[in-house]
Structures are given as structure tokens and as C-alpha cells.
């Protein structure tokens, strides 16, 4: 598959990836920023509707996504006795405990990944958008990519 470079050169790429020129279709990236009001240790996103998405998606759908993400992360990060026990055992067993018993945080991250996938499939892709998983960007923001409608499936 050939790809155009800025100088209008054709360059054949031999990577095994399927190359889709990203210039086709990507219109905008909109961000939902982090909410630090609860302090350190709690990851939350702001429940503010970005004005760029006005008209593209209903308010309550986006807010439902953000609020569910916040709830998953809150449950993962709130420290309970289970967390403390897991960590003490991890130290005492010379770091072999997490291999046997996956921690609550890891399970929550899997849950979050699945949630983002299902939301993408059911809600966002039909509207021509896609949510990037916040894990990719170290939870600094939540990015929603908007594609041209006729490119979306």
C-alpha cells in the first residue's frame, strides 16, 4: 500500500500493518479533561459537555460514559482493607502474590477496557466517533476522535 509523503513522493511501506492514511476521515479530536478536585489518588474526568460535540451526540450518552468511567476508577482506587492486605502479602511473599491473585486494580482496568470497547461499538462508532482508552494517555484526558460520517461503518 502506498502512502503519500509531504513532498508528494510515493514510498512503499513494507510493514505488515494495513496502512490507512489517517488524513482520510479524521476531523477533530475533542478532549474531556481531568477533574482533580478530589485530590491525589482519585482519577476522575470532568462531567462537562464539550461544545464541539454539540449536535453530534446526545448529552446524556456522553455523560453516562464519563460517569461510568469515573465510577469504575473510583471503585478501583478507593483504598480498602483488601488493598492493604494484598500489598502486605505481596511484600511478604517476595512479589509472587500478584501472580497468583490478580489485584483489584488490574481487574478494574480490564473492566474499563471492555467498557470502552462496548461503548465504541454501540454508541460512538455509529455516530462517526471513537473514544480512545484513557489508559493510553496515562489518564491525563479522555479523547474523542470525530471522523467524517461517510467513513464510519
Amino acid at each position, binding site marked *: 500500500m502506498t502512502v503519500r509523503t*509531504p513532498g508528494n513522493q510515493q514510498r512503499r511501506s513494507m510493514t505488515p*500493518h494495513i496502512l490507512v492514511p489517517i488524513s482520510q476521515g479524521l476531523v477533530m*479530536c475533542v478532549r474531556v479533561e481531568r477533574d482533580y478536585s478530589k485530590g491525589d489518588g482519585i482519577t476522575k474526568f470532568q462531567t462537562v459537555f464539550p461544545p464541539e460535540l454539540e449536535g453530534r451526540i446526545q448529552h446524556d450518552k456522553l455523560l453516562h460514559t464519563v460517569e461510568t468511567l469515573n465510577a469504575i476508577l473510583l471503585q478501583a482506587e478507593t483504598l480498602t482493607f483488601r488493598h492493604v492486605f494484598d*500489598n502486605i502479602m505481596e511484600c511478604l511473599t*517476595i512479589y509472587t502474590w500478584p501472580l497468583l491473585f490478580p489485584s*483489584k*486494580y488490574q481487574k478494574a482496568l480490564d473492566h474499563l477496557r471492555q467498557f*470502552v470497547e462496548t461503548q465504541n461499538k454501540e454508541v460512538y462508532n455509529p455516530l462517526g466517533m471513537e473514544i480512545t482508552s484513557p*489508559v493510553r494517555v496515562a489518564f*491525563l484526558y479522555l479523547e474523542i476522535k470525530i471522523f467524517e460520517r461517510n467513513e464510519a461503518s
Partner: protein
Amino acid sequence: MASSPKRPPQTLQQSNPPGLVVSSIATTSAVPSTESRFRLLTSIAPPAGWDEARLGLHSTSQPLSPFFQSNSILRFTDTQVPDSLENLGLPSKQRLIRSSNASATDESSLKTITDSSHNEDPIPHCSGVTSLSNMTNDDSTTLIGQSRQLNTDNYKSSPAYVPPLPTPLMSSPAPINPTISSTPIQVQPPVQTLAVPQLQRRNYQDFPGRNKFFCGGRFMTSREYWAFLVALVLIVGPSVLFGIFTCPFLWDNVHPAVPIVFCYLFVLSFASMIKTSWTDPGIIPRDLDPTPEFFDDQGSAYYGESEWSHVPVQKEVKIRDNTWALRYCDTCKLYRPPRASHCRQCDNCVENEDHHCIWLNNCIGKRNYRPFFTFIVTATFLCLFVIVFSIVHLLLIVRDHSGNITFITVFHAAPVSFVLAIVCFLLLWMVGGLTFYHCSLIFKGVTTHEQLRASIINSKYPGISANPFNKGSPAQNMIHVLCRPQPKSYLRRRKFVESSQARVEPSQSR
């Protein structure tokens, strides 16, 4: 507030380079948010052409601006390509391909005015940027003169890999002439026209920070490892000597449990040391915010030259009751979250960075604070253990030889124990002191950096309380610091490099 006018979303189907992403930050237009707002220090009046410069970076009329040209060249001459241990044996021609691949995949990543501004002279405009942090892949202009010397061998040995260059980028055809020093840029051949098969590269091979990677990217540490070897010797040496010379005596004469406990402590301490030293401390991936908002610094000495007075604005967020400013990191191209810090030695932004430990050759950050604390605590216990039981050994020898006993006889009977007791006594002061310091930090809920900053601020402006992260009670702080969950590494070290062209289509699920 944001004075940049709202533009219609720019489609990218013209000849803009692929991979160009128009990212409009969600709160650039007036968003009624009480919790986060952008604070502009002066009102922005973007100069003419600024909008194009920011968004339509490389339009068709000018596909090859001089800054773009030198940037791709910089990639090629870059000596900061991290050398993992696996690549050390590569011949020079493969190094050529490697660096060309790195730039080929990067060529269509965003080239903004910040990149071009770094080409001239890496003068830090915003705070938080240190002199060392300027010397990265993106702005290694100052290293061109040095790097060329190192790379001339590469170029000389593989002129065949430089095909004739049809782009107007290359006017001077002769690829290599190491004696030319006046026009370095023209000598370097460009990269994007090399027609060589791209090797499948993993992310860790292209990592821009100053880190070393082992075992195919599974382990990572920083660069200067001599102090780590010293620390290793200091941990392993006395422990092994104790195990060989004193433990048999203790097994027979005191109790078998004593050597077993010692072994357990030693293994735990060693494992913690390796885990602290060889894992990701919580490095934040780069280029998360490549186009920050700028403001014209009219007070700057360089006002008038368009690139130099553009300083990224600081974001403001509210943490509990305090307002906190998020600084922009020029090297990593992102807004640092609160408590993150850019490490000068590793040249990375690290979450919750406590400090950079030279003895462990790694930053201590969010992900490895717990094993670090475990290491210093168990090392203190090891020291105490060795001292106590060496003295017990010596005392038991004295008791066994009850009668004519002199210092010399005792010394000859158990010289190793004697020496060990002295050595560990000295080590105890260092490690024990560090342990107490970190315990006090944990009870207050601060990192080392924050503590040092607070002590400076308090000496200048007494009365300002600076810690919005205190949970209230020492016990709460301790539980939070020691038992907070450990996130997975964000670096995706062993995943293959995604070139910006190879993006999954939106209809496919991730």
C-alpha cells in the same frame, strides 16, 4: 479567555501530510466550568499567519519549510537513539537503517512551531525545563556538530544506502564530507526517500528518554549504572560473607531459625532492589499535548521574532480548595499532572516522582515507591541483624574460651564477624537515616521533591501551607502512600511501533 476564534473543523484531505491531527482542546472556547479553566497571562492577539502556522502547518504551497527539513535531518543524525543492549553488536549499516526508520515513522508526526523553535537554540521559555532536558531527540540542534563526528563512520561505510534525492530538500548531492563544518545541514542526506524495508520495531527501541532496556524491553533502568554496582556489592558482599562464615556457627549454637530469617530478609531485600531499579517508575508517555495554547510574551526579550516569544500557557486546576498550575513540559510535550516531575537524569516526566536514586539507577515514582520503601526497610533490618549476630558470635566465642582470652585470640577466631560488624554499623547509619527520612515523609504524605520545595518556600515566605495532598492523619497518609494501587506501565514497551499512518479504522474495535 480564549481569544483564538473558532474555526470550522479543518478536513485533512488536502495535501496536508498524513498524520496531522487538528486537536482542539475542549476548553479553548468558553466552557462554563468552575473546576478547570485556562488562564492566559495576557490576552492573546495572535499575529497574522499564526493560525495557519498552528493548524495548516505544511500546506501544499510550502511542503518543505526549512524547519521541517532540518527536523527530519535532526532525526537522522540523532545519536540519542537509545541503545538497548541488544543493539550493541549491530554493524553500522543497520544503525543507519534504524535511525532512518525512526525518522521515517516519525516524519508525519506533528511538526509544530514548538519544534521549529527548538531548532535554533533551546532556550527554555517556560519553567520546569532544565538544560539537560533540552537535549533530546527533538531539539538536538546543538549536538549536530558533535554527533556528526560520531556518525561520519556510518555514513562513510554505507553510501549505497543513500539514493539520489529527487526532492528539493536536497540540493547538495554529496552525502558525506566530514570536513565540511560550515553548512552541516546540507551534508546530511534526508531520510524519507530511503527505499529500504522497514524492520519491525518495538516501542522500547525508539524510546526517547535516557533509559537502558534489557531482555527485549522487559526491564528498564537509567544510564549511569556505576553507583548501582557499588550498591549491589554493598548488599551482596556482607550478606554472603555473613552467610558463609557466621551462619554455620549460629545454626549450631544459637538456633536454626536465625540463618533462615536472615536468608529470607536477604532475598526480600535483593528482590525489592531489583524491582525498584529495573521497572518503570511511572513514566508518562510523550507527545500527549503537542499543540498547546501559546501566548505572546510581550515582556520577553525575544518578542518580535515569532517563534521565540511563544510560551505555552499554564493550565489551572482546582485541587480540593487550592488552585494549582499545571506546567507544560517542552521536552515531553504534555501538561504535567500535579505531583509529576521531569527528571533531569532520565529525561522523562514521572508521575509522583519522589527523587532520582543514583544508587538504584532509577527514578523513584508512583510505580516503584513501594518496593523502594521495602528495600530500605529490609536493608536496615539486614544491617541490624548482621551487627547483632556478629556481636553474638564474638561474645559466644569469648564465653567458650572462658579463661585466658585476649582481643587478638577473639579476632583470630572470628575475623569476618568483627569486620562485618564494623562495616554494617557504618552502613546502618546511612540506610537507617534514609529510612527514617522516608518514614517522616510518608507520615506527612509528601514526596522528597515537595518537601525540598516546601523547605525553600518556608524559609522565604513563612506561613504558606503548601500541601494539598495531605489526607489529614499520618495513618491515612501512610496507608495511602504504601498501599495505593500500582498502575500498569504506560510505555507499552514491547508493543510494536504504530506509525501514525497505521491507525485502526474507527469501525474496528481495539
